[in-house]
């Protein structure tokens, strides 16, 4: 089964529209409500160029086609289900080594020292696998996080949904879509820090590093 296969055969997919995010943190609150990890949000809200801008960006797991977090796991604790959802670490296996935390290009996995285990977004697998929307998508007031059909997105949004990223030489395909201007077909994250590309003012890594 390919990564793009919709969950539960209902044609529903996850879409992130960063331009719509208003930084209300409702998604984080909703995520914390979930009984499977009560009190811990699996969503990170990134602040972009905090000194100059109010732009925020919610970061859920992108559910890569070839999940690097699972590839680097020495304890075989991260698994991808047939519908393309990369699950959180299996409790009996995770040894808390944080390899996945370092490897993930999106910075999604977080190591929880209090339970010595990595926890990450699993697209509310208990909900989405039975056709319900993820907690964050149910509460997002601006539609920055949406769980709907591709047709619906194409009909209602100006941008285009893509799920291909370029990190230096590495092309990463994800299950989760991001909405970008129509001219864009693949998001290039230039890896300026390691000298792979020349400095760019709008380099994603630079934007995130800026405080």
């Amino acid at each position, binding site marked *: 089964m390919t990564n793009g296969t919709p969950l539960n055969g209902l044609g529903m997919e996850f879409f992130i529209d960063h331009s719509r995010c208003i930084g209300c943190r409702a998604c984080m609150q909703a995520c914390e409500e979930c009984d499977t990890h009560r009190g811990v949000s699996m969503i990170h809200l990134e602040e972009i160029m905090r000194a100059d801008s109010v732009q925020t960006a919610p970061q859920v797991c992108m559910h890569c086609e*070839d*999940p690097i977090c*699972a*590839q680097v796991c020495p304890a*075989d604790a*991260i*698994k*991808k*289900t*047939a519908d393309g959802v990369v*699950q959180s670490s299996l409790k009996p296996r995770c040894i808390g080594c944080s390899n996945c935390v370092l490897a993930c290009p999106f910075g999604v996995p977080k190591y929880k020292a209090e339970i010595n285990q990595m926890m990450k977004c699993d697209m509310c697998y208990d909900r989405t696998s039975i056709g319900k929307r993820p907690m964050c998508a149910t509460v997002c007031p601006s539609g920055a996080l949406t769980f709907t059909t591709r047709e619906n997105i194409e009909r209602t949004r100006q941008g285009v949904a893509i799920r291909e990223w370029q990190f230096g*030489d590495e092309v990463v395909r994800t299950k989760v879509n991001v909405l970008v201007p129509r001219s864009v077909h693949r998001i290039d994250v230039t890896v300026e820090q390691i000298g792979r590309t020349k400095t760019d003012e709008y380099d994603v890594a630079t934007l995130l590093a800026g405080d």
Partner: protein
Amino acid sequence: MADNEKDGCVACKKKSRWREDFPVEWESDNYITRREMVKFLALGSLTIAGANFVLAGLPHLAKAAQLPRTRIGLASSLPVGGSKLFAYPTEEDPCILVRQANGDLVAYSQVCTHLSCAVVHNEEENALFCPCHHGYFTVAEGRPYAGPPTRPLPRIKLEQQGNEIFAIGVEVG
């Protein structure tokens, strides 16, 4: 990096054996091959069989452990139909020594195999009698023949040297 080199690396990544053993996909991780299951069943059966042998052998090993040789008393002091209480192998294990009608000496643990009351010798019925629930054991063999007990009394092995009687071992069942 050249394109063909990249492809070669991807291919070798997919081929490597450990990736087959530790797949990222949930289904492959949970998939159990017929060979694995047969191995599990065979090894599991062997382990259980081995454990049975060990458990069956343990009482024999325990028996092999040397029990003390304890003097009970003088044979001449016990008339026919008489009984004497003693403790063997430790002070905490009460036993009873009985001289049968034919003159032979027998000894048993005094602990009833039903609920551990002390059995006494009943001369009229020629039985070892447990007063708690009216259990009866034969004097000759220690087998239960009436009342709730189902297992025989452990027999104490005796040895007579001249006029003196010694307890030398315990025979269970």
